[in-house]
């Protein structure tokens, strides 16, 4: 229906244009026939504009573009510039048609960007498979996803195996294999096999609806540029209109020899330029394009304001574990003394088996066998030191150097150890040490380098880990500064201190995993959470969510932000400059109505075309 209306308008405008050409060709000066021909063309082209102007005035709304255009063109008729009057209306209409088309197109491309909404779910009900709307599926119902179909709701695989493509959610094109027991996220596409799964979340709570919701509503948090333009438009139009009126009537009354027709013409030029459309449309469009494009790359930005602020980033503060490193601790080295490596691992794993600290978990994983709880008793954990426990009737002490010293056991510190060292003693006899370390993420080094290239002044790492480990990781990655051995509360304090070091306009970004750093995420100008896919906590806490585990996406986000801002500034500058120049020339009597049409419609179209570039963010690495 929308298209039909546009087509109708197009046909009407074309007929009007034909009549207009006819009127020009057959033009005779001072002939009533010519006036009628031009009037006919004018009414065919601009009848609806006149009608809307009248209707809006009746509604008490005066300064709208319909009214301004009507006034400008009627004025031109009265002054005797028939051809120009019709031309203004004609180009205004062509411009409007084009603008509508451009807006429609960009709305379509945005809809396409967000085309991850599943259309249906195959639900097992009784003995049959029913195709229903994902909204109607309840938790714990069984769904079947065939190859090529989109996963409709978050679910867990019961049977079947396949690989799924999560690129629409994460931008990651490598498919992931899933089998029984694995979680399936809605929005992914099932590539190869038939999968039966049990629904874990209702549609409204599922990943795909959360992402869609977030991206669609991102435009609601407006950027400073958008607020500026809205405010600016509120002053711009009335001021230009008032100047137009003054220009039309004051000089002819005051200046000797000035004619009304000349000065009214100049005033009319002002009226034509008085609409701020170019800015009002193109700027939200740029932001929306940027946010939509970022979401395609697995970066969810919760508002235009955050996308705007990101371009001003000066300091980026990283949490270490889970952000720059994988957060997965692994046993790197076993250094036994007097017993076998397997035995050492076994007694350490047993002693630590009551703790769920990542270090203990990695010991148990390396040990690889089930823990027989009957063999352990008398577990005693000393925070910051380690554990002592009875294993098979022997006293095992497992912990750091402090624990060994406290127990008065001589130990050897492994040389150049990077990571956490667990010393183990059995009945007071030193049995060796186990080295456990976290691994740096593959793209972490590149991420830091790209951030530097993007103009970030300082990269800082905060960690609760030992100085030695923190400094080693930071040195390897090329961070500017590192603060180690911090408690969670210290992190907020350090971030507070860093705030003092940035310039007033600069922004401080904190990057964490969103799980235990919510206070810092909230305190920073922009909080970025990593690995958001499937983690509600991360999505809740942060302003920007990186769906994958890749820190290099932060640099991508900053590049998208900078490009968006550049387009926005180009548009503001270009539109205001052209308008100002034409207004000035118009006031001096140099610019014609044609220049005014360009300053209004032409600039709007160019600004929109410039903004549309933002929808194609594939070009940004």
């Amino acid at each position: 229906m929308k298209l039909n209306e546009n087509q109708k308008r197009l046909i009407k405008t074309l007929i009007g244009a034909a009549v207009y050409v006819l009127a020009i060709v057959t033009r005779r000066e001072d002939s009533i026939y010519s006036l009628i021909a031009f009037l006919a063309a004018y009414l065919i082209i601009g009848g609806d504009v006149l009608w809307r102007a009248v209707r809006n005035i009746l509604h008490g709304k005066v300064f709208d573009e319909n009214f301004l255009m009507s006034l400008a063109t009627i004025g031109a008729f009265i002054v005797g510039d028939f051809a120009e009057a019709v031309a203004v209306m004609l180009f205004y209409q062509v411009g409007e048609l084009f603008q509508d088309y451009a807006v429609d197109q960009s709305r379509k491309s945005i809809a396409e960007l967000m085309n991850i909404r599943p259309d249906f779910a195959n639900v097992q009900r009784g003995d049959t498979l029913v195709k229903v709307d994902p909204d109607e599926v309840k938790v714990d119902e069984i769904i079947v996803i065939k190859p090529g179909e989109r996963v409709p709701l978050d679910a867990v695989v019961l049977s079947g195996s396949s690989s799924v493509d999560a690129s629409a959610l994460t931008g990651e094109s490598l498919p992931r294999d899933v089998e029984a027991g694995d979680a399936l996220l809605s929005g992914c596409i099932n590539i190869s096999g038939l999968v039966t799964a049990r629904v874990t979340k209702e549609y409204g709570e599922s990943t795909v609806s959360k992402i869609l919701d977030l991206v669609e509503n991102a435009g609601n948090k407006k950027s400073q540029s958008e607020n500026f333009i809205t405010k600016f438009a509120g002053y711009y139009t009335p001021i230009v209109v008032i100047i137009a009126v003054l220009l039309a009537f004051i000089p002819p009354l005051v200046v000797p020899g000035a004619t009304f027709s000349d000065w009214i013409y100049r005033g009319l030029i002002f009226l034509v330029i008085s609409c701020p459309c170019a800015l009002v449309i193109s700027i939200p469009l740029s932001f929306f394009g940027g946010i939509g494009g970022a979401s395609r790359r697995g970066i969810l930005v919760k508002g235009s304001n955050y996308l705007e602020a990101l371009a001003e980033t000066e300091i980026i503060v990283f949490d270490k574990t889970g952000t720059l490193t994988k957060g997965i601790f692994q046993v790197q080295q076993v250094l036994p003394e007097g017993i076998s490596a397997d035995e050492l691992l076994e007694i350490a794993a047993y002693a630590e088996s009551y703790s769920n600290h990542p270090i203990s978990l990695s010991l148990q994983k390396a040990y690889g066998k089930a823990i027989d709880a009957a063999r352990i008793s008398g577990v005693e954990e000393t925070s910051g030191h380690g554990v002592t426990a009875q294993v098979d009737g022997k006293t095992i002490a497992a912990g750091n150097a402090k624990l060994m010293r406290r127990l008065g056991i001589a130990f050897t510190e492994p040389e150049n150890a990077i990571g956490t060292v667990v010393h183990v003693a059995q009945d007071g006899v030193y049995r060796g040490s186990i080295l456990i370390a976290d691994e740096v993420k593959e793209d972490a080094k590149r991420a830091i380098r790209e951030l530097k290239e993007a103009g970030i002044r300082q990269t800082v790492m905060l960690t609760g880990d030992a100085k030695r480990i923190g400094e080693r990781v930071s040195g390897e990655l090329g961070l500017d500064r590192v603060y180690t051995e911090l408690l969670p509360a210290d992190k907020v304090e350090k971030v507070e201190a860093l705030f003092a070091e940035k310039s007033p306009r600069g922004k401080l970004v904190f990057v964490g995993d969103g799980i235990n750093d919510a206070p810092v995420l909230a305190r920073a100008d922009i909080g970025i959470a990593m690995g958001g896919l499937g983690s509600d906590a991360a999505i809740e806490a942060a302003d920007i969510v990186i769906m994958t585990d890749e820190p290099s996406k932060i640099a991508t986000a900053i590049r998208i932000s900078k490009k968006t801002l550049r387009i926005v500034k180009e548009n503001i500058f270009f539109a205001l400059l052209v308008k100002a120049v034409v207004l000035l020339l118009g006031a001096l009597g140099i610019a014609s109505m044609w220049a005014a049409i360009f300053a209004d419609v032409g600039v709007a179209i160019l600004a929109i075309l410039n903004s549309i570039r933002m929808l194609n963010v594939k070009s940004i690495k």
Partner: protein
Amino acid sequence: MKKVCRLDGLDCASCAAKIENAVSKLDGVSAASVNFMTTKLVIEGEESRMDEIMEQATAIVKKLEPDVVVRKA
């Protein structure tokens, strides 16, 4: 509470700004936002007065942009 509706046929960005401005000034509305690209109007306001607010918001849209149809999202 939050209420979302669609503004079908919204094709003027400055009108979108005017609608947003007028609706956010309504009694009982704490925040209102028009998203020109998704043509969505989001109103946050007192739950007990939401029907009244919606009625007034629809009237505002009708007045500012008579060609736009307010539809439930």
